[in-house]
Structures are given as structure tokens and as C-alpha cells.
């Protein structure tokens, strides 16, 4: 009895080091490290202190706080804004469903989103755009997330249904936002009125969803045995990668319009989306191609030896391994795409950054406040980019289960 207790004692893993030990081992492990610590800690604290005190006491956030709707939806008609609300609510619903099903990072995002909604709904300030209805809407979104959570917990709801739902949201969103000609309920809203975060998200989500399959197709095209197909893919990829995004945007927005007859004019926003998609697809294609090359020949032989056709081998064996290998690169590619959408400003689309600039230019008083506006915009971009990067890292660990030897 005593013996086993001693044994138990001995098998226990060593205790984690205490805070003092951590400080000693990590901040003062060597002379150089100690000097760096002593020199840098005051600088870090000083910077943090000045930024926070500036943000709280000297900064004037009027140019940000006065126009929440402008930043989010641009000039979208205010009496039609409920459509954006419907889309937002369905996104929150699906966020909740995904939280219920998968947990993890989705849980943190859901809770954070719910918290932001509640806090905004209860803000003790007078604001013309934060009226009763708006507060009610924001509060109801928290309920949406919770409802979603409980739906997601139901085992009968298939994961594939949730994924398809997510993919349908952007399509339904575009239809709903654009509306239908001569409709009473949802009259047509021209895209010239769309703006702000709405446009940024539409371009980014649309660009990602469209460029990814196109990129995969181009990667396979480039490896194809058919010379026409591989030639076309190679030229496409190399030309697009050799040209700045700005040029491609101009090409799609101006040159395309010149060649097409007036009646078949493609919408300005769609042209921007096409440009972003094509640009991102060329880079995705090269990433995916690298992944395809990293799959060992033995994997393909093993699949073939089991009687699997080329297509089945590709779908079940090659592509999953290739994509897993290049997931970090593809995620990075999508983060750049999200930020690169700001370039559409130059072809006259008022995305999030564009709205910020037009607010600054709308009033001489606001010109003085441009620092605040740009910091706000940068912060929003950073939050979403960081979320994407976090999500990609979580996905990596989830997919890496099988290769930790």
C-alpha cells in the first residue's frame, strides 16, 4: 500500500514552474536577455500608455461614431436596410449553429459577437442611428446565436447541411441586396449605393469562394497532359501573377466595358469581383500546385492498386493531402485578398476604406480627424484578418491530428 503510494508519487509529471521561475527562465536567462528585458519593458509600457491615453482623452472620435450606418452599408437606402439586417441575422444564426456543432474558436467568436451586440444595444448614449428599433434588432441577434447553438446541438442536423447553408448565404445575400426589378417588397437597389463593410465583405467572401475552385482547376490544368489546357493555364497564371492587382482592376472596369456592347454591360461591382477573383485564383493555383507536387507517388499507386479511377484518386487521396499541406499558404492568400479589396476605391467603389475617405473629405472639420478614422479602419481590418489567421491555425491543428508521429 505504502509502496504503491510512493510509486504514484514518483510517476507524477513535474510541476509547471512558478511565475517567478518563469520570469527568471524567460526574461532573465542570460545577460543579453536581461538587458533586452530592462530596456524594452519601459518602452512597451510607455507606448501602450500613450496610445491608450490618446484614444481615451485626446482623440476625437466624432468622424467615426456619427456614421455607423455609413461605415457598415454605405448609401444603401435606409428604408431598405432591413435586408442587410436579415442577412446579418442569418449569419448570426449559422454562427450559432456552427458553435453548437464544432465549438472551439467558433464558440469564442459567437460569444464575442453576442457580447458586442448586447453591449451596443444597451449603450447608455443618445444616438440618432441607435434608436429603439436598432437596439431591438441588435439584441435579437444575440437570441439568434443562442437559437443557432441549440439547433447545432441536435445530432440530426447534418454537418453537410450546415456547410451548404454557409455557402448559400452569400448567394442569397446578393439576390436580396440587389432586389428584383419592379418588385413591391424588394425593389431593385443599384450597386452604386452599396458601400462600406458590406461591400468589403461581399468582395472578400465572393473572391474567396470563387477563386478557390478556380485556382484548384487551374492547378490541375497546369499539370494536365493536354497541351492546350496546360498551356492556357500556365499563360493565365503567369500573366495574372506578373501584373499588379490595380492593373487588373482597371482592365476589368474600363477595358471590359469598352469591348462589350452597352446593353450587356456587367455591373461595376461584379467587374470588381471578377478582377479580385481572377487575381486570387492565379495565386491559389500556384499554392495548390505546390501541394499537389508534395503528395508522394506511393499514395497514388496505392489508390490505383485498389482499383480507384483517376478521378477518385484525385478527390479522395491527392486533393485532401495537397490542400492540407498548403493550408497555411492558402489562408495567407485569403487574408491578403481581404485586405487587397481596398484597392477597388480607385475604380470608384466605396468599400470600407472608401467610405472612411469620403467622410474625411466631406467636411473640413473631419480632415483634422483623419488619424482617428484611419486608426479605426485599420483596427477593423486587423480584427478580421486576425480572426482568419486564428481560424486557419485551428484548422491546421485539427487537420494535423494524423501526422504527429
Amino acid at each position, binding site marked *: 500500500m505504502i509502496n504503491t503510494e510512493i510509486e504514484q508519487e514518483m510517476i507524477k509529471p513535474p510541476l509547471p514552474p512558478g511565475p517567478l521561475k518563469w520570469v527568471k527562465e524567460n526574461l532573465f536567462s542570460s545577460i543579453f536577455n536581461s538587458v533586452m528585458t530592462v530596456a524594452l519593458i519601459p518602452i512597451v509600457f510607455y507606448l501602450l500608455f500613450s496610445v491608450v491615453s490618446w484614444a481615451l482623452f485626446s482623440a476625437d472620435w466624432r468622424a467615426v461614431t456619427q456614421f455607423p450606418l455609413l461605415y457598415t452599408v454605405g448609401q444603401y437606402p435606409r428604408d431598405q436596410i432591413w435586408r442587410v439586417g436579415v442577412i446579418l441575422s442569418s449569419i448570426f444564426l449559422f454562427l450559432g449553429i456552427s458553435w453548437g456543432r464544432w465549438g472551439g474558436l467558433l464558440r469564442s467568436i459567437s460569444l464575442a459577437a453576442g457580447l458586442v451586440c448586447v453591449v451596443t444595444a444597451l449603450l447608455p448614449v443618445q444616438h440618432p442611428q441607435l434608436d429603439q428599433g436598432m437596439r431591438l434588432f441588435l439584441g435579437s441577434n444575440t437570441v439568434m446565436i443562442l437559437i443557432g447553438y441549440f439547433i447545432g446541438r441536435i445530432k440530426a442536423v447534418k454537418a453537410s447541411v450546415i456547410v451548404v447553408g454557409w455557402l448559400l448565404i452569400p448567394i442569397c445575400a446578393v439576390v436580396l441586396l440587389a432586389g428584383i426589378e419592379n418588385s413591391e417588397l424588394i425593389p431593385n437597389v443599384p450597386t452604386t449605393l452599396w458601400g462600406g463593410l458590406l461591400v468589403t465583405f461581399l468582395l472578400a467572401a465572393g473572391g474567396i469562394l470563387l477563386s478557390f475552385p478556380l485556382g484548384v482547376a487551374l492547378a490541375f490544368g497546369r499539370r494536365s497532359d493536354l497541351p492546350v489546357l496546360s498551356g492556357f493555364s500556365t499563360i493565365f497564371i503567369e500573366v495574372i501573377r506578373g501584373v499588379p492587382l490595380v492593373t487588373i482592376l482597371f482592365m476589368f472596369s474600363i477595358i471590359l466595358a469598352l469591348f462589350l456592347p452597352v446593353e450587356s454591360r456587367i455591373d461595376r461591382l461584379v467587374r470588381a469581383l471578377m478582377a479580385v477573383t481572377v487575381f486570387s485564383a492565379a495565386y491559389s493555383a500556384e499554392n495548390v500546385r505546390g501541394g499537389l507536387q508534395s503528395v508522394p507517388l506511393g499514395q497514388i*499507386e496505392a*489508390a*490505383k*492498386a*485498389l*482499383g480507384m479511377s483517376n478521378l477518385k484518386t484525385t478527390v*479522395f487521396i491527392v486533393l485532401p*493531402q495537397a490542400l*492540407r499541406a498548403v493550408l497555411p499558404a492558402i489562408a495567407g492568400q485569403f487574408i491578403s485578398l481581404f485586405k487587397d479589396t481596398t484597392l477597388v476605391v480607385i475604380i470608384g467603389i466605396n468599400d470600407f476604406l472608401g467610405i472612411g475617405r469620403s467622410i474625411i473629405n466631406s467636411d473640413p472639420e473631419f480632415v483634422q480627424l483623419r488619424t482617428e478614422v484611419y486608426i479605426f479602419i485599420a483596427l477593423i481590418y486587423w480584427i478580421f484578418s486576425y480572426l482568419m489567421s486564428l481560424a486557419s491555425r485551428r484548422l491546421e491543428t485539427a487537420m494535423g491530428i494524423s*501526422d504527429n508521429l
Partner: protein
Amino acid sequence: MSEEPIIYCRNVHKWFDDFHALRGIDMDVFEGEVIVIFGPSGSGKSTFIRTINRLEEHQEGQIVVDGIELSHDVRNIERIRMETGMVFQQFNLFPHLSVLQNVTLAPIWVRKWPKEKAEKVAMELLELVGIPEQALKFPGNLSGGQQQRVAIARALAMQPKIMLFDEPTSALDPEMIKEVLDTMTDLAESGMTMIVVTHEMGFARAVADRMYFFDEGKIVESGTPEEIYNNPQEERTKLFLSQILQH
């Protein structure tokens, strides 16, 4: 043994560009036979068994497997691959799929079995190779011997008539070789037709019906294990045997 050989090879030639890797191989394998192929490195052993399921294409001669002639017809190739299981030196398990998924993938998508049936058969096979408790693990978390046994179960799941083994134990640590050879011995005793490239002479002596000695893309000598071990006819065979039996 039936009259018709299940594998029929006549005058099989194979070139890698200018390199003449197989120089006229003749071989008949009947149902239920266990064939062991051995010979020095580069003698074309792998190349030969890979031509049987068309992982390599032969340029001259005739190969008929289970009544189907190997030709450029893709349907023929896929039919033959469904009838022949292959086990590789490097296991080649699919690292992104669990052990169970490795075994059920082809039965579900090629044989079109319902998932429940495929999983039931897979669990029986994992039982047979002695690792049912690893079904939900990923290949990366298994030892080499366990991986190779999963690879055998994966090949058997397609219910092949013929099993091809290309040096199944030479990438394994010595203590794991036995567990794989035991599995193969069981399989041989169950009446499976097998072609095994191996230098495990104890295994060959115990289970082989016939042995073939390959050198420079040709069959130098063939016979029962008794004939090969006790009374080899060719100098090259004697020399090679004396070399590998020393170890």
C-alpha cells in the same frame, strides 16, 4: 488446382527508356499457389509484379490475369486492379484517413458497398490481422508492423483473388518482421493466391509452392523450395543464396 492459370505471362518485356528491365518473363500461377520471387537489387522483381496490376506497363508479350488480358483498355485495368491486392514496401497508407477509413475507402467507392457492410468487413479483417483496437487511430500513430498489417487488411477488403507483396518486411525493424510474416502465412494457408517478393528465406521455405530467382531482368532458375535450397542448378543462384543465407 484448376487447369487454367490465374496469372499467365508469356515473353514479357519492359523498357525504361533504353534500359531493358524485363527480358522475356514466362510465368504461370495457378489458383491457391504461393510464389516467392527473389534476386539481387535491380533485377526487376518489383518491376515484374507491378506489371501484373499495371502500375508499370509492359511493351511486349502477354499478361492475362483471371481471364482478362492486360491492354490499354482502362476498364480492363481497373477490373484487374479490383481482383489483385498489392502490399508495398513503404506501406503507403493514406495518412489523412483513419485506419478504418483506409480499409473501407475502396470497398465503398469502387465496389459500391454500403458503408455499414464495408465497416463490418473491415473490422473482421482488422481482427484477422490482429489490430481491431487501432481502427480509429491514424496511420501515423501506428508502429511499422501495425501499419503493414493495416495495408494487408486494406488490400484484402477488396476481396481480391490475388495478392501481390513487394518486399513487405524490408522496411521493418527486426522485431516487427515476424508479426507481418505470421499474417502472411495465415493468408497463404487460407488458400489465397500470392506472389511475394522477399528475401525472408524461412518464410519462403515454409509457405512457397514455387520460387523464382531473378537476375538482370530474367528468370534464372525456378523450382520448389526444396529444389532451390538443396539443389540449385545455376552458379548465380548458388552464389546469391550463399550470400543472403550468411546473414
